[in-house]
């Protein structure tokens, strides 16, 4: 072995150096004496928009970013003000938030928890972001929400549909405007019962990850409650692009409904495969075979093209809604970008407005004050009718749209038609509902 000369003096010298080195970080006292982390002191306030710019949900991410830019423009008094004029709370006046100009930083979540957290951390630690928002996947939303809770900033979730975001993984500093799997199930089940009858046999294909599980659970329990039977539930890998191998067993079973608990590219591919296998022309048990897609988005409908016609699903918001808020939003988004916004864009825009308004009403950027202002907040005019931010789990309760692929679309954006607007009351559940059990909000954390 190589030589290792240890002398008493050598050891003491290096010990002293190492000790001094270790002591260095503790010599300085914490510099800032602010009441909460990233307290905005200058004339501006920084928001962090953390969206997927690469990976499977890059389309949604790009649309979210457009919505955020629009929201910032409106908050700073630019453009036509969008939904600020229809929002039931009138505290926002186009002078920024509490008189501070709104600035923003962006980051790429890559739809990976690690990358999303790294990006959010750099926004908090480097850019001084006071609020983080965005995301297009529940895994990322849950991960970033936990980070924001630890760091002491507010998290306004973007597109996240899993029950867990406001269920077992809920956090005091996190808020979700988007609807969830349970609501999809509760809204879809009666419509499906009306359209297809109550003695159906359902076969589920489920994306093999967290969102898939909660959606499958929500849909099976909601449909079983009205008399359907669940024949089989099969998990499919998230990375799968060809679902033929999973469709063939459906043909051999006696199921007469196929539920595709898939989102994004998964759903586009599985639906296309199912249609190619002639499932929609099949007659089983004397009944027409049907396909159901619990969570729809316009971007997905466009990807699946012809195949979505007549297929039921649920969605958070659709640009064809006739209320004043939706019309104002579609108009200002369309003027700026030339096409109507997606549901992801809508929820992100609304979340930004809700945050800004909560700060105005609270009179402080302190996360705890904001949490207090948002909890139990009832509002209207943001496109979903009267809405409640429930204090118990920080979930918004509002109407849910049941939609169907349009038979005769008039444009590439006009792919879905609204079948029914399920009232909020019908999709409301107690905070301790079994599908949301476990986990606790904890206390709000202002950081410093």
């Amino acid at each position, binding site marked *: 072995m190589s030589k*290792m000369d240890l002398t008493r003096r050598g050891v003491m010298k290096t010990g002293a150096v190492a000790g001094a080195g270790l002591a260095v970080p503790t010599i300085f006292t914490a510099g800032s004496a602010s009441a909460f982390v990233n307290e905005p002191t200058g004339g501006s306030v920084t928001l962090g928009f953390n969206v997927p710019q690469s990976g499977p949900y890059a389309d949604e991410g790009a649309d979210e970013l457009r919505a955020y830019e629009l929201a910032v423009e409106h908050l700073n008094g630019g453009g036509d003000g969008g939904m600020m004029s229809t929002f039931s709370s009138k505290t926002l006046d186009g002078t920024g938030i509490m008189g501070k100009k709104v600035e923003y930083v962006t980051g*790429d979540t890559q739809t990976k928890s690690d990358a999303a957290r790294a990006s959010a951390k*750099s926004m908090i630690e480097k850019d001084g972001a006071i609020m983080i928002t965005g995301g297009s996947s529940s895994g990322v939303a849950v991960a970033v929400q936990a980070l924001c809770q630890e760091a002491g900033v507010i998290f306004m979730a973007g597109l996240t549909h899993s029950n867990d975001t406001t269920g077992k*993984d809920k956090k005091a500093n996190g808020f979700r405007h988007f609807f969830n799997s349970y609501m999809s199930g509760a809204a879809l089940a009666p419509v499906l019962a009306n359209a297809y009858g109550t003695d159906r046999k359902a076969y589920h294909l489920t994306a093999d*990850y967290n969102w898939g599980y909660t959606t499958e659970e929500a849909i099976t329990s909601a449909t079983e409650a009205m008399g359907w039977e669940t024949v089989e539930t099969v998990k499919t890998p998230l990375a799968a692009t060809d679902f033929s191998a999973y469709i063939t067993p459906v043909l051999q079973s006696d199921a007469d409904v196929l539920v595709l608990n898939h989102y994004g590219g998964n759903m586009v591919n599985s639906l296309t495969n199912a249609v190619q296998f002639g499932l929609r022309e099949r007659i089983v048990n004397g009944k027409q075979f049907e396909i159901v897609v619990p969570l729809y988005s316009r971007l997905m409908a466009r990807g699946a093209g012809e195949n979505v016609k007549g297929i039921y699903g649920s969605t958070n918001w659709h640009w064809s809604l006739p209320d004043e808020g939706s019309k104002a939003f579609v108009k200002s988004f369309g003027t700026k970008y030339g096409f109507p916004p997606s549901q992801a864009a809508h929820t992100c825009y609304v979340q930004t407005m809700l945050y800004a308004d909560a700060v105005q009403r609270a009179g402080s950027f302190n996360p705890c004050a904001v949490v207090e202002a948002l909890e139990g907040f009832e509002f209207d005019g943001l496109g979903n009718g009267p809405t409640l931010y429930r204090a118990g789990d920080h979930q918004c309760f509002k109407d849910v749209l049941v939609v169907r692929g349009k038979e005769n679309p008039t444009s590439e954006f006009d792919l879905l038609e609204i079948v029914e607007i399920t009232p909020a009351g019908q999709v409301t559940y107690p905070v301790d509902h079994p599908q949301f059990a476990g986990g606790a*909000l904890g206390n709000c954390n202002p950081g410093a």
Partner: protein
Amino acid sequence: MFGLNKKDSVLFVLVLFLTMCAPFLLNPFPQGSELAQFNAGYPDLMQRFVIFGIFAIGFNILFGLTGYLSFGHAAFLGVGSYAGVWMMKLLTMNVIPAIMISVIVAGLFSVLVGYVSLRRSGIYFSILTLAFAQMSFSLAYSVLTPITNGETGLQLNLDDPRILGVSEVNGSIPPPNLFGLSLRDSAEMTFGNWVFTFNTGYYMCAVLMLIAFYISIRIFRSPFGMMLRAVKSNQQRLNYTGLNTKPYTLAAFVISGMYAGLAGGLMVAMDPLAGAERMQWTASGEVVLMTILGGAGTLIGPVLGASFIKYCENIFSKINDNILHQWFAFMPDGIEDVIVFLVHPFVGKGWHLTLGLMFMLVVIFLPGGLVEGGQRIGRLFRRRKPDAASDASQTKPAE
């Protein structure tokens, strides 16, 4: 010093200086200036520099010395992370048990993987390790959801037992600590417009990286390291001389697996969440990139490569069109838009493209990685006079 020769001592002191002064060195631009965008001296990124430095140092012990290219090293990092989070869930928020168990579990897992994979060499070895890593990823992503929490990632909860610590403090999860010293605490020092952040967690990681670096130097200079180099240069000849190389390669594999486990443990100590993507093949590929980019087989190369890639990932990915327009605002409108249009594909979501180009340039022009670049610059300055003389005599036109 510490049994290192003079050259290695100098290198070690240089790394010591770089890591200890990182908060100053990485924040060269004053706050609020246009260039502040390029500052990297915030705790999260500094922690990543040293953690991925450890990961790459470990990978280099295997790849740089024996030449065995493992394409599944991220699996050990992931396994270490999961083990670390479980310790924090079950035992205590003190990170020492978490880090120790991370190293141990990753070491055991690498014994298993190494024992099977090392039966083959070359491309077959790479494919076997890749297969193991993808298998671990898929298991963690779906089948093992009760242990790994699947796609969402394993994280701490308020109702975790933490039998040696406390479950919650005022309705919050207690922060990870080192014997009571919170790793999230930072001290700030202000000089005019410059703000330097000194973070406890960073310094803990930095000290561990120095230890890891020191061990790596000792391995490189030991007879064991020489044996590993012999494996790289001609394994067949070694076998013919009657030596069994398997124990050596397996030992190198396990050591580098333990380094990966240490990196994984530190990652969760800094940020208590373990996601399955950490084990994906892209993550395994990343450490290969880091090592080759910095200089495989050199001591400091992997650390440089790791820092370079993490810098690109965290800094370039955050430059958006808005910022570009601010930078080029002094130009006439038309030209500004053209420039922004040209730069746009390389920043923001296009940071992979920038990284890819850099990687190609380095591999083509500097096969020895960034270290070779440094050496060339060094030579340029040191031997300017004699070189200039000899160059003048040699580079006469052919005509």
